[in-house]
């Protein structure tokens, strides 16, 4: 007995080490293994519990298999006939009952969590209500109680319950922010799905589409920007401020004719496709071109460069996107990109 405990004691740090290794896996803003809010935390807890039990099960099988393979291998010339055992009731009961016990240990927190995470916050006045609508290949975020609509970048206050109602405008997509919460599919035809999550602290988190939705499924990324509550209120106000058109009259006309027939900027334009209000302060263009002043990879550049790349040939950036190659001269593209890059929100 003593001996077995020793083995277990030696295994424990190993297991703890593995859990540590797991928790150090991946980027904090993207990995399910580094949860940044209570929902992802709860899901990660369940993952840790099941992984631990399953690693133990796997190790037991490995040990028995290893022992059997080495101990009972046939020696050359061995003609002996082993005892033909039919079975063993005691053993069979053991390996039926132990798994059942393990399943109960996993099952209870699972059921608990299933109902816990299904809690409905859509009527909660303290929660921020958000309608998510997925499109091929972008995300629309509407704040129904605040009268604000934006795209590709979900701005939320920290430490507040975010209550989401998700649907799609076309095919199935799935709304997933790995470090904040598990995913929920966006269904068509008025079949709305609910979920909630909360971010513990400010920062930018990566969101993904997790259901095959067409050629650019892999590029249908979005961002969740978590800010403090005061900033959030300022952002909501800023979103409603009127936006000035470009001073150059020619560019203003082109913008009106070519861009604002589909897109909205502040109080101007049409809300059919991604809302461009404050696009200059967003993290990316088209979900794929990352805005940064120190570009490191092929898909990174300044906001203005990224906007130019995108407007020049949207299909080359995101195959299958509905954004057409708009009839613009290079000068017009430069001017529009410059104007859009300057659309920054103060919050």
């Amino acid at each position: 007995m003593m001996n077995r405990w020793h083995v277990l004691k030696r295994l424990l740090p190993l297991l703890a080490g593995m859990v540590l290794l797991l928790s150090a896996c991946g980027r904090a803003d993207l990995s399910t293994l580094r949860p940044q809010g209570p929902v992802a935390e709860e899901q990660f807890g369940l993952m840790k519990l099941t992984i631990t039990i399953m690693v133990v099960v796997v190790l037991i099988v490995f040990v028995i298999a290893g022992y059997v393979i080495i101990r009972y291998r046939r020696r050359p010339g061995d003609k002996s006939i082993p005892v033909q055992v039919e079975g063993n009731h005691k053993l069979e009961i053991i390996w039926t009952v132990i798994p059942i016990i393990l399943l109960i240990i996993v099952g209870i927190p699972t059921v608990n969590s299933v109902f816990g995470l299904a809690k409905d916050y859509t009527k909660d006045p303290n929660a921020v209500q958000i309608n998510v609508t997925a499109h091929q290949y972008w995300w629309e975020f509407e704040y129904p109680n605040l009268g604000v609509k934006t795209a590709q970048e979900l701005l939320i206050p920290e430490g507040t319950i975010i209550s989401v109602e998700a649907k799609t405008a076309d095919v199935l997509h799935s709304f997933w922010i790995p470090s904040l919460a598990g995913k929920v599919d966006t269904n068509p035809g008025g079949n709305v799905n609910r979920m909630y999550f909360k971010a513990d602290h400010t920062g930018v988190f990566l969101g993904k589409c997790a259901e095959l939705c067409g050629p650019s499924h892999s590029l249908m990324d979005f961002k969740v920007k978590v800010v403090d509550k005061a900033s959030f209120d300022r952002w909501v106000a800023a979103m409603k401020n009127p936006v000035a058109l470009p001073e150059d009259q020619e560019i203003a006309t082109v913008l009106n004719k070519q861009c604002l027939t589909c897109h909205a900027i502040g109080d101007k334009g049409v809300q059919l496709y991604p809302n461009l209000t404050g696009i200059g302060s967003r993290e990316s263009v088209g979900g794929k071109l990352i805005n940064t002043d120190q570009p490191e990879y092929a898909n990174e550049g300044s906001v203005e460069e990224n906007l130019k790349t995108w407007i020049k040939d949207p299909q080359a950036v995101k195959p299958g996107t509905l954004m057409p190659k708009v009839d613009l001269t290079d000068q017009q593209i430069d001017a529009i990109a410059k104007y859009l890059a300057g659309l920054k929100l103060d919050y």
Partner: protein
Amino acid sequence: MAHAHAVKRYSGLMDWLTTVDHKKIGILYLISGGFFFLVGGLEALLIRIQLWKPLNDFVAAHTYNELLTMHGTTMIFLAAMPIIFALMNAIVPLQIGARDVAFPFVNAIGFWTFFAGGVLLNVSWFAGGAPDAGWTSYAPLATPTFSGGHGVDYYVIGLQIAGIGTLVGGINFLVTIINMRAPGMSFMRMPMFTWTAFITSALILFAFPALTVGLVAMMFDRLFGGNFFEPTNGGNAVLWEHIFWIFGHPEVYILILPAFGVISEVISTFSRKRLFGYSSMVFATVLIGFLGFMVWAHHMFTTGLGPVANALFSIATMLIAVPTGIKIFNWLFTMWGGSIRFTTANLFAVGFVPTFVMGGVTGVMLAAAPADFQYHDSYFVVAHFHYVIVGGLILGLFSGLYYWWPKMFGRMLNEGLGKLCFWTFFLGFHLTFFVQHFLGLMGMPRRVWTYLDGLGFNNLNMISTVGAFLMGVGTIVFLLNIVITSFKPRDAANDPWEDGRTLEWTIPSPAPEYNFAQTPLVRGYDAFWKEKMEGKKEMLPAEPLGSIHMPSPSILPFVMAIGLFIAGLGFMYGKGDYGDGFKAFLFNNHIVAILGMAITLFCMFLRSVYDDHGFHIEVDEITGDKGVKA
């Protein structure tokens, strides 16, 4: 003999096109399934090349979606299922002491319709684009609104035709196993592989009609403007998910159970020991088959079915771990105390056990719905189902093929090359898929054409690609082994492994056309082993030597499949702009489709009115054969 008819017995190509012999049909299944396995494998390699580095543009985005769709569809329906049917055809009748399956003609129909469907599906590559909505073909992505072109039509029609083959094949094996067992072969004396073939056939009987219904409904949506799954016109996209997975989950067990059977046979034979806990193994198999129908919604935890459904399906799914665990430990304890010989077949079987456990435990992890919200549709799921399908089924099939190769072809595969094949494939497999668990947990969704740089996915994807190529090497070594072996003489003994326990090892390798000159008398489980232990070299016959009645070969099954193939193409291209020439007249009036259906129906008519009594093999011919005493 009074009933003897002069029946033409073909040779060469015509022999293969007309055969109704289960052993030859098994080989046909193996060749075509093997061919599609190579096609699916090539698609997998292209996928892995595309993903070996971030922002790669080796293939275009839409081509990538075609590749992932066809890889899944091909591997499941056109590679795994047929190779399972190959083993079932080649071995089940021999294991139960039967001379053929119950309906040899239907058996041939099963093969040829599968083959026609498979070819039709792959014709799509050359006809303007393969299906690209995933092997699950979820609506609305697969509806005409979002999927113009004919890609998904090929999926819908090809799988319907191939599905006929699977369904009649399943029915055939059910009837065969129930009715054609040799005297003394009670259900609880049947070899484990036969048992799993039996349960798999039962699952096919109940699961495939669901798929057919779904495909027919989807076909109406696509070809005739139906609105089953078209949300804009009141259809319901979630309905397709339910129909698909009510088929799709049992399909998983349809695939894995025969592998369980193979492993049971191989481990028992090469440990020189009776299968530990045989009756609990049978019970576990039946239970897995039953529970397999109760868990489909665990593929839909994120669809939004609500907490009650999610909780129930979570628990139901976890329950499957219990019978599966029983099997794992029974295998381990079959080896315990045995005398284990590590042939290639047994290496694959022994490698299967821990590998399958790794796939099984991630299955239990996935069953916990709240955690699944994180795993679902990520690379974690990709890793999980490849662990059970490749690490489970494919290792099982390799094991079965090495084990029964001498019985199917009369030649032993080379053991040296076999071991090389095992180690490259096995290591390549773990290299490819183990890291994918972590990719998924780190936030990489599945079915992605590419991924951005700097997300921490690069190294693991590169490792995965290297592993995939190693698996490719393993497969090439296997092919090499087949080619090299085929130049060797056909000299395999009746019982080439010397430790054979079941009836197939009592007859020559390969088995003669009539399998058993005299139907054997079965006196217990592991019938042949029992006789051996009592010092006998062969089975007691249950009947005197006499002439043997055989079914006639027929070209009709082949022609019927061609008819369905033509009809399928006709339906698909029934709507289109062909100008106003002859082609437009042919297709737009469904004349091609009607012609194809007419060919098939005419064959059925011929089969019904023309009474074919088969023929007899006389005693002289039987006693003239090698290895049979008069």
